């Protein structure tokens, strides 16, 4: 095996969960720090504006985009409505194909399962394909504590890992770094993790990609165990689907002897045919390509081709709690394309780290407070990290009405209510006068005090509304809702803001 020298301790990576090095600041503090960082702001503006235009062009190629979007939303709603049935079907199909299925109620259990599975192989290192689920549960840190080194192999994840940094974007976790900074990280840090950067490394993207190719090749060729996520799991056939660009995914999925995939339970789709919708929606929304360079699908271990052992770890970790919220459950449709981040004026100014979880941007603002609850100041402030401009909804390929969920979660923070925690109904009190409310107020002030961000956001949507599909019915209050939703609700928030501004913060 490469890389792990005798007696060397696996280094604990930084994490959003578990034991962060510093307590996560609430959204407003972190956002203020980010807006004052001119390089960071420049990097983000450049990258998000580039991808915005490309996405719009890729979407415009398909005259039936709105129908694909409606189908995607409906397939996900059907999946969620009958999730128990589809999970059982998936389990049966994966098992019949020779795979092993494990169930994890929370992050700790998922980490324990993966750690045990890796130990059983005798390996002390794993190669990883970028996976939101494993970031969410802090898997790398848990493995490090068990003496197992996890090598990230996605280029952006590698940059983050070498830089001892945190991801700040779903698709491009190192979006906050420019080429010069990446060159410095490679030059200074690659040697600590394996093959050093080539001498005289420049900052052209092609050179940087070549350096990553050489550095990671050693790891791939010797890897015994890989850990991945999956974009989709097909219930009827037990098929796992991974979309990627670089080939690091294919390396991890086909070269090691053991493959462990950690996947959120909401990633299941009922049928093979359903992929014809998502394979059109995802690449165009995500990287603005007709199709991403590589997609791998497999149903259990293939005979004499790729890993002999395949383990699927199905992760709950707050998803069933989210599912029980009639308004909030639509967040579980998310296919993690990151289009909502790229159009968000608040994300563009605040940066991904301000959201304090693996899920930054608008989707993070609605998903994290549901997966983790709104007890902490950070999580309570997230629903306020938005101007409610609606651009996120308009680009979302599965029509998640993010503004609607934001307003719903604000009500939960401000007024309290009933929701589900670990499967049990609980009543939460209004945050009034608590640290959580003060954090929420500061987040609200931060966004409201940025007229430029606010104005730009409004212009961004009104200018393009003509091109976007009519609002789709949310899965909403009832599963069979067919009515149109009301327009983006700005008024309740403004009213709330006027009523409470200056009080308590």
């Amino acid at each position, binding site marked *: 095996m490469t890389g792990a020298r005798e007696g060397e301790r696996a280094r604990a990576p930084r994490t959003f969960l578990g034991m962060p090095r510093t307590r996560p600041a609430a959204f407003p503090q972190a956002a203020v720090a980010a807006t004052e960082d001119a390089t960071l702001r420049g990097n983000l503006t450049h990258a998000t504006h580039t991808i915005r235009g490309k996405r719009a062009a890729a979407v415009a190629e398909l005259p039936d985009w709105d129908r694909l979007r409606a189908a995607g939303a409906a397939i996900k709603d059907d999946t969620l409505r009958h999730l128990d049935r589809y999970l059982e079907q998936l389990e049966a199909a994966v098992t019949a194909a020779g795979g092993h299925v494990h169930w994890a109620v929370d992050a700790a259990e998922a980490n324990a399962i993966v750690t045990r599975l890796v130990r059983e192989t005798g390996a002390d290192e794993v190669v990883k394909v970028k996976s939101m689920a494993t970031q969410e549960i802090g898997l790398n840190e848990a493995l490090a504590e068990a003496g197992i080194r996890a090598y990230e192999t996605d280029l952006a994840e590698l940059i983050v890992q070498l830089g001892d940094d945190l991801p700040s974007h779903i698709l491009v976790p190192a979006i906050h770094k420019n080429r010069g900074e990446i060159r410095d990280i490679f030059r200074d840090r690659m040697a600590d993790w394996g093959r050093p950067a080539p001498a005289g490394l420049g900052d052209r993207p092609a050179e940087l990609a070549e350096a990553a190719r050489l550095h990671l090749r050693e790891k791939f060729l010797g890897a015994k165990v890989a850990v991945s996520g999956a974009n989709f799991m097909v219930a009827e056939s037990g098929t796992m689907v991974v979309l990627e660009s670089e080939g690091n995914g294919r390396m991890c999925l086909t070269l090691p002897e053991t493959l462990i995939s950690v996947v959120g339970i909401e990633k299941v789709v009922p049928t093979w045919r359903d992929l014809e919708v998502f394979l059109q929606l995802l690449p165009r929304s995500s990287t603005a390509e007709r199709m991403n360079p590589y997609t*791998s699908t497999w149903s259990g271990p293939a005979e004499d081709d790729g890993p002999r052992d395949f383990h699927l770890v199905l992760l709950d970790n707050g998803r069933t709690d989210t599912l029980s919220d009639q308004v909030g459950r639509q967040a579980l449709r998310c296919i993690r394309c990151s289009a909502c981040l790229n159009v968000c004026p608040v994300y563009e100014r605040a940066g991904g780290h301000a959201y304090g979880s693996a899920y930054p941007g608008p989707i993070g603002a609605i998903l994290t407070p549901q997966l983790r609850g709104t007890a902490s100041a950070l999580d309570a402030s997230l629903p306020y990290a938005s101007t409610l401009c609606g651009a996120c909804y308009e680009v979302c390929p599965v029509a998640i009405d993010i503004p609607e969920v934001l307003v719903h979660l604000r009500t939960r923070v401000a007024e309290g209510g009933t929701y589900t925690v670990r499967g049990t109904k609980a009543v939460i009190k209004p945050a009034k006068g608590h640290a959580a409310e003060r954090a929420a107020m500061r987040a609200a002030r931060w966004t409201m005090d940025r007229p430029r961000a606010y104005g730009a956001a409004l212009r961004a949507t009104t200018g393009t509304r003509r091109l976007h599909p009519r609002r789709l019915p949310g899965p909403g209050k009832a599963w069979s809702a067919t009515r149109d939703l009301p327009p983006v609700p700005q008024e309740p928030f403004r009213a709330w803001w006027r009523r409470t501004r200056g009080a308590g913060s």
Partner: protein
Amino acid sequence: MSSRETILARVRAATRDAAGTPEPAVPRDYLRVHGDRSPAESVDLLAENLADYRALVHRTDTGGLPGLLARLFAERGTRTLLVPDGLPPAWTAAVDADRVPDRAASTARELDAVDSVLTGCALAVAETGTLVLDAGPGQGRRRITLIPDHHVCVVRVPEQVVDSLPQAMERLDPARPLTWISGPSATSDIELDRVEGVHGPRTLEVVLATV
């Protein structure tokens, strides 16, 4: 209660409000194909989209195929060529390179020393410029089209070309391990700019062979 039972019970409790409400149908009124093309036009579109994602596209017919392949590998300087089982022997008859068979026992490091790989495919999707390999005859194990730096893929046209993704899904078998390839390995991870050539083959050549 096992974690499995816990999760399933939570799902059932969370979706209880669905009981008795009508089951909405998934709207399938999206297009099966984007445009009305003759088979020849579909092949043209495939060529165009492959090239747009930086694959090198060549066209020939059955008679010209051995000569073309011999020329491509000679120009590349290929000394060792991976050839999966089931590839028509005529394709490589004129190629001047040592043949390396696709064997389960080969190690990844051995494959890393091979210059080029030649395969067929299961089908190609014109609208997206995508090749799909299903590990069938003439395609080999998934890793052989990954580790060598140069992949040449032969598509029999027009029979292996479908127009769209919905048409592709109908023809593909989920029980087989599938690899979908749209251009050479690439990344957008540095400033969201696309750069070709990361871990997979940095050169992808596609031969559209009329049969």
